[in-house]
């Protein structure tokens, strides 16, 4: 796709009309600063970017940058237009009226969409954006490169998969299910070491046997449900059973038989020592003892007030003490006997009260099989102890024994079957309820497993896509890196910065680093070591390498003042790149560097390139003025008589182009000029050198003799005079007449004709010898050594 011309009407610096005609060739436009070069680049960017120009973005906030697109002197009703015409007659155009809708159109209609898909960063490179790629973040670099060779579609796929995965996680309630699973798992782990079916079944069967019967083939769920049902019943009936058990246990704990035995024993002891008047005797003897303490040893016999025996006076005191001890012991035995009787009476009373007051026992006693027990209980109830301290008759004791012994035997038997406790019931109930959750956790586990399988599959797809993207990225980056290095070496041959590579960043996904080797040391970023000039030429290398990838290499590129930070040598190298790397591309090159422009004109093939010069921009009304910079003398003549001034300029341009080229071929050294003048040499400077050097070096053979080629010297002298007088006048004041212009053309054409042999018509540098060059036939030659 090649551009035929770019037309601007009241667009940026252009006035009524400015047309940059490329005729499908590449174009070099030279112009001083602010002569309107960038207006063409802006127009192209405006169309590609659908009404946006990056370098104006921050200055003008209005949509479509209307206020800066229109020429400031354009009339109210004029429409600013930028149009790109293509070689096949197609075009894309934008019309920007003062107010109202901005209109993009194209022929064919879908061409505008195709053009607006161009990546502006891969088509336009401006001086102040040349190192942008290097300055961008790693992620921005990746974004800039991802459209290359269709990586974007796979980025989209990877993103889609992640979106689907996120939805699967959310919609399935995956996290909640996992939470539920953990809770149930913790419950199950309290009772079961595993949820392995046989282990679970064994544990459930073992515990269920206490409550229900079941067959071996019954499922865990069935057994658990049965057990739970039974436990429900048990929990309802358990209270009276436990109460009955506790009552019987209390009766048993009362140890009635031991108490009976204790009472009998103490009563027998009491019977042995006799118990009459013990208390009175003790009182008398204690009083006697007190009296004896105040008396001397008695001389006469004394009758004991307690036992009534006569005692020697000397022994009476000891007798009283002894008797008192015996009585006290008797009293102790009696008290123990009474205590035992009372304890038995209380125990019997308690038993009767408990039996009577506990409904569970009462109900139990009403059971038909408990008639015998009931009779015993009734008998026990009839054992009435009116005086708990009174001694039981032996008949009463025997009657009690006859009731208590069988009753206790029955109670002991009842107590052998201990009723389940509430805690146990509760624990078993929880156990079986938990067992029922095993199928639930299995279902939950199954669900989670399915979701995880899906999530895992989606993640795997994503990872594989990323892996492929990564491989493709490496492949693409390798290809681009090769291209960058190739271009870099052309601009900077033999310099100590090499192995430039674009590589995926090891630090994060979707990021790209630029690595290089600086004096043999690997560097992870060009910003670490490269000067601004190097960064710019690296930026240019990267731009050209990227521009040469994919579909872009069929499309035009626009380079606006890209060599500003490069020295003369490297600018020359850029021309090599243009010739060798971009020979098949349509390039629009804009420069304000006159010397480089001359070099471009000398070195780029005229059949592929057109050269324009922008005249100085005077005002918005005059706008951009372009003139071709590569006329032939024939073309120059056709400008007359209508365009005298342009014809004068064109002659001057021809001389400015051809003389440096000839000087280079003839190895002619130009004297050094100071400062900027060195870069602004004109054809006059060259003519002066040709004249002075030609007198010594330019020879023609006449009659077998080599003579100075005097006709040539004179022709150059004449040309020099007229260029100074008239060509300068044409460009500075525009006052050249038609006849003067015709004569100027004739003289300059004549001057340049001496670079060809009058006989063989070949260039005088057609053949090279050690110290001279010559035409093919050898009629003329130029000494190239001093």
């Amino acid at each position, binding site marked *: 796709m090649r551009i035929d011309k770019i037309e601007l009407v009241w667009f940026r610096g252009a006035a009524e009309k400015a047309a940059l005609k490329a005729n499908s060739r590449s174009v070099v436009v030279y112009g001083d600063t602010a002569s309107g070069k960038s207006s063409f680049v802006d127009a192209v960017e405006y169309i590609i970017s659908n009404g946006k120009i990056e370098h104006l973005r921050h200055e003008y906030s209005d949509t479509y940058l209307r206020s800066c697109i229109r020429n400031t002197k354009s009339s109210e009703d004029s429409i600013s237009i930028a149009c790109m015409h293509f070689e096949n007659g197609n075009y894309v155009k934008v019309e920007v009226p003062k107010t109202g809708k901005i209109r993009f159109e194209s022929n064919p209609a879908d061409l505008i969409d195709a053009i607006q898909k161009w990546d502006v960063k891969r088509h336009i490179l401006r001086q102040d954006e040349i190192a942008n790629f290097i300055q961008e973040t790693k992620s921005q670099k990746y974004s800039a490169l991802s459209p290359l060779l269709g990586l974007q579609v796979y980025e989209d796929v990877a993103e889609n998969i992640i979106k689907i995965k996120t939805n*699967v996680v959310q919609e399935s309630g995956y996290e909640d299910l996992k939470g539920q699973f953990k809770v149930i798992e913790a419950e199950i782990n309290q009772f079961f070491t595993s949820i392995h079916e046989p282990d679970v079944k064994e544990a459930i069967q073992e515990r269920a046997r206490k409550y229900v019967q079941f067959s071996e083939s019954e499922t865990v769920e069935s057994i658990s449900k049965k057990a739970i049902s039974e436990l429900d019943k048990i929990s309802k009936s358990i209270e009276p059973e436990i109460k009955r058990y506790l009552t019987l246990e209390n009766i048993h704990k009362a140890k009635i038989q031991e108490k009976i035995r204790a009472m009998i024993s103490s009563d027998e002891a009491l019977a042995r020592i006799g118990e009459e008047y013990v208390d009175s005797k003790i009182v008398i003897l204690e009083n006697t003892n007190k009296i004896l303490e105040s008396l001397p040893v008695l001389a006469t016999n004394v009758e004991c007030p307690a036992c009534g025996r006569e005692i020697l006076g000397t022994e009476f005191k000891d007798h009283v003490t002894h008797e008192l001890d015996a009585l006290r012991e008797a009293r102790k035995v009696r008290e123990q006997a009474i205590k035992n009787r009372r304890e038995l009476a209380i125990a019997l009373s308690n038993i009767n009260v408990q039996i009577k007051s506990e409904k569970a026992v009462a109900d139990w006693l009403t059971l038909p099989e408990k008639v015998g027990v009931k009779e015993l209980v009734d008998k026990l109830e009839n054992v009435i102890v009116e005086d708990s301290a009174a001694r039981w008759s032996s008949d009463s004791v025997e009657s009690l024994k006859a009731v208590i012994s069988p009753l206790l035997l029955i109670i002991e038997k009842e107590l052998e079957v201990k009723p389940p406790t509430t805690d146990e019931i509760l624990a078993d109930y929880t156990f079986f309820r938990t067992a029922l959750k095993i199928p639930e956790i299995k279902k939950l586990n199954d669900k989670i497993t*399915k979701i995880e399988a*899906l999530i895992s599959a989606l993640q795997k797809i994503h990872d*594989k896509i990323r892996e492929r993207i990564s491989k493709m990225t490496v*492949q693409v980056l390798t290809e681009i890196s090769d291209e960058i290095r190739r271009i870099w070496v052309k601009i900077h041959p033999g310099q100590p910065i090499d192995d430039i590579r674009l590589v995926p960043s090891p630090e994060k996904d979707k990021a790209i680093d630029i690595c290089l080797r600086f004096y043999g040391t690997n560097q992870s970023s060009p910003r670490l070591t490269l000067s601004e000039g190097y960064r710019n030429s690296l930026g240019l290398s990267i731009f050209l390498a990227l521009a040469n990838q994919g579909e872009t290499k069929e499309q035009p590129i626009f380079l606006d003042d890209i060599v500003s930070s490069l020295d003369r040598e490297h600018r020359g190298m850029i021309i090599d790149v243009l010739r060798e790397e971009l020979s098949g591309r349509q390039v629009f090159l804009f420069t304000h560097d006159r010397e480089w422009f001359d070099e471009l004109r000398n070195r780029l093939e005229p059949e592929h390139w057109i050269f324009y010069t922008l005249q100085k921009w005077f005002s918005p009304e005059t706008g951009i003025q372009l003139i071709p910079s590569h006329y032939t003398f024939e073309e120059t003549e056709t400008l007359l008589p209508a365009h005298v001034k342009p014809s004068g300029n064109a002659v001057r341009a021809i001389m400015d182009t051809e003389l440096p080229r000839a000087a280079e071929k003839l190895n002619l050294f130009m004297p050094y000029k100071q400062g900027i003048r060195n870069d602004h040499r004109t054809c006059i400077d060259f003519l002066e050198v040709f004249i002075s050097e030609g007198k010594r070096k330019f020879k023609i053979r006449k009659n077998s003799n080599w003579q100075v080629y005097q006709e040539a010297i004179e022709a150059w002298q004449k040309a020099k005079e007229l260029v100074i007088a008239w060509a300068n006048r044409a460009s500075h004041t525009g006052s050249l007449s038609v006849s003067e212009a015709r004569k100027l053309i004739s003289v300059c054409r004549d001057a340049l004709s001496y670079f060809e042999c009058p006989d063989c018509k070949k260039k005088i540098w057609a053949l090279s010898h050690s110290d001279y060059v010559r035409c093919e036939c050898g009629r003329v030659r130029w000494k190239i050594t001093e």
Partner: protein
Amino acid sequence: MSEESTFDLEKIVRESTKKLKKISGSARTYLVSIANKELQRRLTTTEAFQIAQELLKKMGVESQCE
């Protein structure tokens, strides 16, 4: 570009979902069937949601958010 760099998404989906095949052949078949169409254009949030719903349905897992 070399053959190595060509992108066969259907193949990737097939390779990545071998395990899924054992659990839900229909979910896998569905994923494979959309590999060369739906998945290769940028999905909207709603479209991604619908595909996720369909996958869960085919897995026999009902949505918790319905």
